[in-house]
Every structure is written in structure tokens, then in C-alpha cells.
């Protein structure tokens, strides 16, 4: 999956949880990604962030990525 699409999807999730505030929202986003994104999608998002290919990623999603558990895949 291209990173642009993953960023868009992650941003949608982050936007939904934004009302929860900077402290709680990243955890909710991370929880959603953990529960509903298949590991290779999470791994690709992590890689995109690590490689600087996640341009435009919502700050809350970026914070969520940090909170994600490592992907064993």
C-alpha cells in the first residue's frame, strides 16, 4: 500500500479522535490502528514515518505511531 494512502487513512482516524485532546487522542488512534490495521499496514506506516515518507501525517497520528506496539510480522 502506498504511504500516501496510509497517511490519508491515519489522518482520517486522527481527525475523528482529535476532540479527545493531545494527551488521549494519540492513544485512541494507536488503539484503533492496533485493533483494525493488519500488521503489514502498521509496519508500512511505521516505515514511512521512519523514512520521512509520511509527509502530511496528522500530528496526532504521528504521536500515535510512537505509541504503537512493534509489529512482529
Amino acid at each position: 500500500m502506498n504511504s500516501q494512502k496510509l497517511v490519508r487513512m491515519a489522518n482520517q482516524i486522527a481527525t475523528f479522535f482529535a476532540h479527545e485532546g493531545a494527551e488521549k487522542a494519540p492513544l485512541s488512534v494507536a488503539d484503533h490502528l492496533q485493533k483494525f490495521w493488519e500488521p503489514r499496514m502498521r509496519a508500512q506506516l511505521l516505515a514511512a514515518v521512519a523514512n520521512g515518507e509520511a509527509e502530511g501525517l496528522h500530528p496526532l497520528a504521528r504521536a500515535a505511531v510512537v505509541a504503537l506496539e512493534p509489529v512482529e510480522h
Partner: protein
Amino acid sequence: MNAMLDRDFGTPPSTSETTVAVEIDGLRIEVPTGTSVMRAAAEAGISIPKLCATDTLEAFGSCRLCLVEIDGRAGTPASCTTPVAEGMRIHTQTSKLKSLRRGVMELYISDHPLDCLTCSANGDCELQDMAGAVGLREVRYGFDGANHLSAPKDESNPYFTFDASKCIVCSRCVRACDEVQGTLALTVAGRGFESKIAASADESFLDSECVSCGACVKACPTATLTEKTVIEIGQPERTVLTTCAYCGVGCSFKAQVRGTEVVRMVPHDDGKANRGHSCVKGRFAWGYATHPDRVLTPLVRERIDQPWREASWDEAVGRIASEFRRIQQQYGKDSVGAVTSSRCTNEETFLVQKMVRAVFGNNNVDTCARVCHSPTGYGLKQTFGTSAGTQDFDSVMQADVIVVIGANPTDGHPVFASRMKRRLRQGAKLIVIDPRRIDLVRTPHIEASQHLQLRPGTNVAIINALAHVIVTEGLVNEAFVRERCDLPEFSTWAQFVAEARNSPEATESITGVPAATVRAAARLYATGGNGAIYYGLGVTEHSQGTTMVMGIANLAMATGNIGRPGVGVNPLRGQNNVQGSCDMGSFPHEFAGYRHVSDEATRELFEDIWGVPLASEPGLRIPNMFDAALDGSFKGLFIQGEDFAQSDPDTQHVVAGLSAMECVVVHDLFLNETAKYAHVFLPGASFLEKDGTFTNAERRISRVRKVMPPRAGLADWQAVMAVCQALGYPMQYAHPSQIMDEIARTTPSFTGVSYAKLDELGSIQWPCNDKAPTGTPVMHSAGFVRGKGRFIVTEYVPTEERSTSRFPLLLTTGRILSQYNVGTQTRRTANSQWHAQDLLEIHPHDAEQRGIRDGDRVRVASRTGATELQAEITDRVAPGVVYTTFHHPDTHINVVTTDFSDWATNCPEYKVTAVQVLPSNGTAAARS
């Protein structure tokens, strides 16, 4: 004329809780107050002769055959229109009555063809029966007088004939159309001897407003209205009770059969979902099961550019097993998956997901609910605690305010729509929230109090505006909220919706709906009595589909419209078993019963029974499967009863994904569009060819019973078992009932379900367990499943798919009555006579601007692709909005739709695509 139907008591039952005692022919009987003498007699086992009466219609009192004598009363009243009274002594068979009835029958028969031996209703004719019942032996008037014997026959309808020469003008057909269907297409034209049944303004049935639901045919006591299959085949010899395989209403039908040939499908009067009614699809459009296009032999090929080669089941199944194992060895365990079908049974979907989890060893299973109601599952689980609608269909008859959002029940769920219309005719109020003026907005004897004709993509802005009014005008049901809901969550939500930016005035420019209309609708819903919300894919198929479902749930909780008959949040599920396929663990993140795969206790439960370790990470969703295929990490897909290449958005992406796989298996009735990209084709079995269960939109589990043997040799559950066996995981089910037993052992909401109980009760609404041994018609009655109801903030976020100067119109899609989804079944029936092609509805203003005339071919182009359609100019759609259906593959409408999807579930945003529409220059579907 349905002798094989349930016993007919003549008039509907009374719902009174008080009773009266009467004596009929010396028998004492106690019946509810308001019961007719005819029904009371029938309940005492006494059949009073009748022709115009039937217990599915209100008493009419026209045939004069059901006369009785009552002590102390003058004359011979009609028993159908005479209610019982305490102490009444009734006589149904006296010399006076016998003489009167015989005289009446003489008049009827004097103007009726005497062709009983060759009549299609021979053996199933109430007129014939009544002639026998009254002892008619002669017709003193002869047969040479004025009569209707040469009246023309109307054979225009593809499914039934209207033979006016056999009509006794009892009005049962007219009343069935009025009372049961609610279309009011039929009438009695003329007076006296000239009286005749007329469709619309004396048009042919096909050209009239008749919707071919079959209610008139079922009600007809003679051969006047007869199924053409009965005329062609003859009377059926046995009945199999089963469940329709079309929409999520899940109508119960009597399949009436001769040998293994279906003669007709008759709606079952005791069916709790349909209460004896049907639509044109379930009643008549079942011929696809024996259509010559059916593929009855497995097919294989090495590459998708090769022709198919017929194969044995063993070879085809062996090919699947060897290819899937090869792919997993080469690309990893997670490189294969499967898709379950919402058209297959619960047992079959359970087996397919079991195959993925236990045999493939991953969670890459998804279902077509992904592209329709997955936001319902997520949204209602978060707010109420259960991924399902809250009510039974009967509930609508106690609703005072009905809100229809993003649904078109008269086309998509017609049998339920008829009940809804009946309630509306009784006086319930209606609010419609839809970009298009659906039929319900104004139909005979019904007019919506408010039609919120919003711009596509602005649902959440509307629901927030409605909530704003309820909160700021003090219309919240505070007692309900305080007792049943999480108060801090409510408080946060109430503050959010109360913000001025969510007011109807502030959102008017976004939604296009006048603020006054929104305010009136909110006040009506909150204060009009029982408020019931019914919604469809116009809610879910948006980038904010899940948010909107939550918004609906918020609204219902805030007004206390949850937890009793007449209220609730009711998703109108699209396919016959979309609820069931979700219940059965078809989603990649959860097992049967909506338990997440990361839940250790649930995994251990299944691991113990299935004997293998199970994966704890969520699998790929359908759109993700195509993405992963293009990445090269997903190579094998088993697809049961689903046609991605036609039904899923952004066709180019779907086709590219399918083409990138190394083994695609299609298990279907027909070589559908997706089969073009398949390597193995397994012939499926129609609902007539197997046993199982479907679960409808009201969580009702109903039996599907085998009417004929599987035409290709194996039912779908047997085919999946064979694949699992070939993959080294033997399954030992001898009958689908054993699969249901396993479901019951593993799924808390199904603990009490068994085939024996289904046979006993007819159908069961889950949850069915120790707490609710006969099922649960209304959810959340004593408290929400999750404990306290959860209000969730639903911020409106405009879709990224926006109209621009290049693509200035918004395309939205929907369904039509006569066709079903991608038309695989209905296009192979005479239903295509009503809808031979998909049309593009465009507003006169937009059409004029573009020089488009009604009937012109037009090119519809989006950022994704382009296709061609025929234009239909109509003000059903607002300026700036165009609309089409997607029933025909040559429409290629999903070439145009985008890959935008719901934030939570990836449900595609079918309902909003920015397009330009211009007169066609003749180019075919293509990339723009």
C-alpha cells in the same frame, strides 16, 4: 387461491385483551372482543362459506356468502363484518342460510367459465370449493345471458396473468394492494354489471403502477390472478418452508414444489419478518436458480488469459489446496485469505472464516459487509455495545415518528416498507433525510412532514444540527440519559453539539437544508412520541459513515428512543444474510459474536475446539487485500458469492489487485465479472439447494431448507469442507445443523440456538441464551449491552471528494425495486423488463445547462474514470446532484467511484463522487 397456505380464519385476529363468550352452532367459545363472527366460528372449527373474506385483509362484506343467523337479531348478517357480542347465539347452517348461499353461488357461477377441468386453479379454487360447500347442483339462470366470459386476458406481467373472465369482483386483489402492499394500484372500475378490476387508469398490469409484489395474486380466490408457473406446470404437490435469499428483510416463504421443480414461492403468513407479504424479487424472481447460465461443473485454468477447462471437484479442490499451500510456503502464511458471502448461510460463512483462521492460519477474512454496513457494526458496538439493530420489524407498528435516513425502503426493502407505509397511513409522522426525493416522501395517503434534502456527504452536519436543537431547546430526555447513559460522556457531547457552529443556521450553508426544516424535524422526533430511526447505505457508505451511525445512536439516546417497542435504531441491511455473515466472524478483527482476535479467552475457546493455534493480529480488509496484492505480499484469495469487479469501488484498482494474485478462486452460481480474474471456479448452490440459516436485519435467524438437490453436486458448505480436507484439515459435519451446534457452543449470543428450536419457534432473534431462551425482539430494554450508553462526539469533517469546476456535480448511487445489487440473480429473470439498464438521474437545470435531453447518452467522468449512461431528467434529485443504480455490469459505474472510504472501517464512499456529465460523443467506459 392458495390451498397449500395456512388455514384462513376469514378476518384478522383481534388484539383486544378482553374476551367475550358466544355460542356458535351449540359450541361455546371465548374469543377476544372485536373478533368477527366468522373468525370466532373458524376458531371453533366451523368454516362458514366465504369468498371476499380472508384473514390477511380487513372484512369487506360484499360476497354475501358468509351470512349467519343470530338469535334476537333480524335478518342474516354477514359474519365477516359482524363482531361477536357477549352471549351471542349464532347459527351458521340453517335452511334459510343454505338457500340464500346457494342462490348467491348460482349468480356467481352463471357468469363464470365452466372449465374447471382445464382451469389452472383446478384443485386450488375457492369458488370451486364454495360451490361444493353450499351444495350447488344447478344454475337456474342458464349461461346464455349477459356475461363476462369473453373478457380479455391481460398477460402483460411476466409473472402472472389477469383473466377477467374468471373474476368475481370480490375486491380481494384491490384490498390486498391497498392494505398489504400500500401501492393502491388497483381499483374496481364501473358500477353494477360493468364492474371490473382495473390497474391504475385501466392500463395493462405491466404499464400500471403495479409493483408485482404478488399480494393480489395470493389474495385472489379464483384463477383470475394466477402465477404463470402454475399455468405452465400445474398445482404443486408439497411445500418447503424456507427464507428468501434477496434483501435483509428475510421473508419467510413456502416454496411450493412438484418433484424438485419449484412451482411458486408463496409468502408465509406466519413469517415474523414479512407477515405474509412479499416483493417482486422474492415472490417471482427465483428463476435464476435454473437459468442456463448456471455453471454446474468446476472450472480450472493456469492463467487468467487462458480459456476455462472443466474439471472434477477433486481436481479443482486439489488445485486450490496445492496452490494455496505453495503460495503460503513461497510468500508467507499471511499471503492468502478469503471473503465470505452475505448471500450464503450462517453455517457457510462460519466455515469459510474457520477455514481462514484454523487452516490458513491467519485472519485474512472479510465479507461484503465491508462495503455496506461495516460502519453500523463499529458505530453501534461503540455506543450501545452490540453490532446490530435494536428492534424487530413489528416495532414499526408502534412508532409515532418514523425517521428514514439514507434509505429507500420501497425499493430496497419493499416488504418492510409496506408495513411502514401501513403505520404511516394510520397517522405516524415521517421525516426523510435523503439527497433524493424517494417515493416515501410523497406516496398515496402518505406525505413526509419534513424532507431534509441534504447535499451528499453532509450527513454528520445534519445529525449534529438535529442534536443541537434537541440539546439547546431542552428536548433531551434527561431521566433516560441519567439512568441509562454515561453522564460525563453525555455532558461532553451535549456541550459539543450545543456549539453555535453545529446549529441548523450555521450548517445550512453546508447541508443545503433550511434551518427551519431541521428545527421542525428535531422537535418532531424529540416530542412526537415513539421515535424510530431506519437507515440504509446512505448513512454508512461515506468517509464519515461510522461517525454518522454514532450520531444516530446519540440522537436516539438523547431522546430516550431506545429499549422499547416503537423506537430504536434500525439499520436496513442490504443482503439476506449480511447481519449473519458479520455475526459469524467474517470480519478480520473478530471471531463469531464480535469478539476481537486479540482476546485471549476467546482465542483459547476456539483453539480448544478447532485444535490449532490461532492468530491474534487482525487480518486484511477487502480493500487492503487489493493493496497488498499490488505490493506483492498477498497472492491467493478464495471468494465466495461476491463480485468485486462489479460491486466494489475504483474498479481499476480492484482489477489490478485481482490480476496481481496467483490463485483466485471464485465460488459462485455464475461466471461473474470477478471470475474473469480467477484461476479456479467452484460452482455454487442457490438457496433452494441447501440447508442452513439466514439472519435478517432484525437479528432474526430463520431456516433455509433444501428444496432440490445441489445442481452441481455439492452445497457450498460441503465444497468448503472439501477444500479444508484437501488442505489437511478434515471437517466432519454431516449436516449444517452440526455447524450451528458449533456456533452455539462458541458464541454467547447463539448459545440457545439449534435447528430443533428453530423448527419449534419458526425463527429466533439473537441473543438467544439462558437469559433469553426464545430470543430477543427488542435490545437494550433493561440496560445497554455495554452497560451505560455511550455518547460520542461526532465532529463533521467534509469529505475529501469535493465538487470542483472540473467535476461540479455529486454522483450518488442506489437500488431499484426490481433489481438486486449487481444483478447477478435478477438480471437472469424477467425483472429486467422493468429495469433493462441503469439510468442517470439529472435535474432539469443541470441537464439544460449541458444541453442534455431526456434519454440522451451521457458521459459521466470523475477523477478516477468515466463511463456512459442514458440520462433521465427528473427533479427527484436536487440541482448539483446526479444519481444512478448499479445493477448492470455494462454501466461500469464503479469505474467512476473513488477509493475514499470510512475512517474506521474502510467502507467505501460510494455515495459521494464528484463528476462531470456531458452529452456523450460515443466513447465507451475508460480512464479519464
